[in-house]
């Protein structure tokens, strides 16, 4: 069978688990919102989807960050590039992710690569906008002082402007990371795996599986958010001094 969609449907699990696992473990709880017995027995099956989820999210964010950061540096000196770049990344950000996945189908086909491209494209707007915002917000007096101390434009960028822009850059990254982790659940629609597999197909009517998968997604988002906050704390020590 050549249609990749049929493979996708098979991959999601068929009916085996509602017949067997749920039948045995949740007989008394049929119709209940959350079946603890099934959850305890089947928590293992969420390991692979979680890893797959990370395999989509992490490359997407890294690519998105590198591209957006490069665009921000490029348009930092050539200011006229900023409005068209903001508009272009804005268009990518507006296209709903599901539509975006399938628009790429004739070009890149099904699977993880397409998911990574779409999610990376998604992060561009937020990271790019926040990075130029951060750079533009650096007070002119600070730049003048740096120039007066004899720093070259390159040194001013890397030693003065970028460090001062870190809070905005990280704020953008946090938004990008959290929304990317949530949107990556839709990657199941293009057979890219991830935690969406535990919500879709035959799992679509089984709340226990959906709730566990959604909880993992949200915990993952929370964890990444916390890591980025820590990164910000360690990369901007002067802010802590100022606060205390």
């Amino acid at each position, binding site marked *: *069978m*050549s*249609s990749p*969609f*049929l493979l996708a449907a098979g991959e999601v699990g068929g009916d085996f688990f509602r017949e067997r696992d749920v039948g045995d473990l949740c007989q008394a709880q049929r119709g209940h*919102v959350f079946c603890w017995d099934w959850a305890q027995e089947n928590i293992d099956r969420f390991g692979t989807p979680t890893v797959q989820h990370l395999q989509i999210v992490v490359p997407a964010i890294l690519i998105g960050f590198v591209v957006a950061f490069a665009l921000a540096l490029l348009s930092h000196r050539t200011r006229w590039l900023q409005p068209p770049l903001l508009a272009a990344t804005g*268009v990518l950000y*507006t*296209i*709903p*992710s*599901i*539509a*975006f*996945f*399938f*628009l790429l*189908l*004739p070009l890149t086909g099904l699977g993880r690569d397409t998911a990574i491209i779409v999610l990376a494209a998604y992060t561009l707007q937020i990271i790019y906008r926040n990075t130029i915002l951060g750079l533009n917000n650096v007070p002119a007096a600070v730049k003048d002082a740096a120039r007066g101390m004899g720093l070259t434009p390159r040194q001013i960028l890397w030693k003065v402007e970028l460090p001062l822009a870190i809070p905005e850059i990280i704020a953008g990254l*946090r*938004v990008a990371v*959290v*929304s990317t*982790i*949530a*949107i990556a*659940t*839709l990657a*199941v*629609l293009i057979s890219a795996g991830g*935690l*969406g597999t535990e*919500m*879709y197909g035959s*799992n*679509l*009517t*089984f*709340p226990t599986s*959906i*709730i566990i*998968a*959604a909880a993992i*997604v*949200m915990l993952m*988002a*929370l964890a990444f*958010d916390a890591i980025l906050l820590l990164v910000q704390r360690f990369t901007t020590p002067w802010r802590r001094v100022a606060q205390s």
Partner: protein
Amino acid sequence: MTAALPLASFTGAFEFIFTPQDSNVTGGKKVGGFDKSLELLVKHLEVTLLALAIALVIALPLGLYLGHRGKGEQFAIGLGNAGRAIPELAVIALVAVLIGVGLANVAPVLAILGIPPILTNAYVGVRQVDRSTVDAARGMGMSEMAIIRKVELPIAVPTVMGGIRSGAIAILATATIAPLAGVETLGDFILNRNVYGENGLLAGAILVALLALTIEGLLALLQRRLTSDGLKLKTV
């Protein structure tokens, strides 16, 4: 489902949008075409607008009020952050199993996805208004309602509208998977791929993308119209 579907192509997708095509499973009945596309487009828009209206009624007054009083910052900002972490697929799947299918059940749940950006931006927009401006208005004898309506809201328009745009797009995007909960939208073309074929799938994606860009464009125009000329002088 037995015969292999034709591979998706953009020309095929556009043909699907305008002229009904053969399907593998409907027994000779044609699928797609302009009438069907338009019908689903209108339905998609209806679901989106209904959910957006519900979200606006709840989130906008609450956000403006909290921003005006300067209360509940943790709540207003935290809600915006938490809202982004909600997986849409789980929301739609759970509403279908636990609450029920159909527009009456799905629209309020879709609204939940629009509430966080609208509320957070309304709060932030009003909070950003210079306190001395508000004090001046109060000194002129304006009531608190008048201050919100005539001073804070007009100044906060760009931020408030930004939230409404995000909310509208989030709702419109999620409405694409609403067919999983028994609400017909353009997502039908995408999710019922065995009926509509791969060209139908691509056609659905094209229509959803165009609809989102159109709505975003219209809301951006509305934002320009609502923003007072004095505020436009400031470049963002």
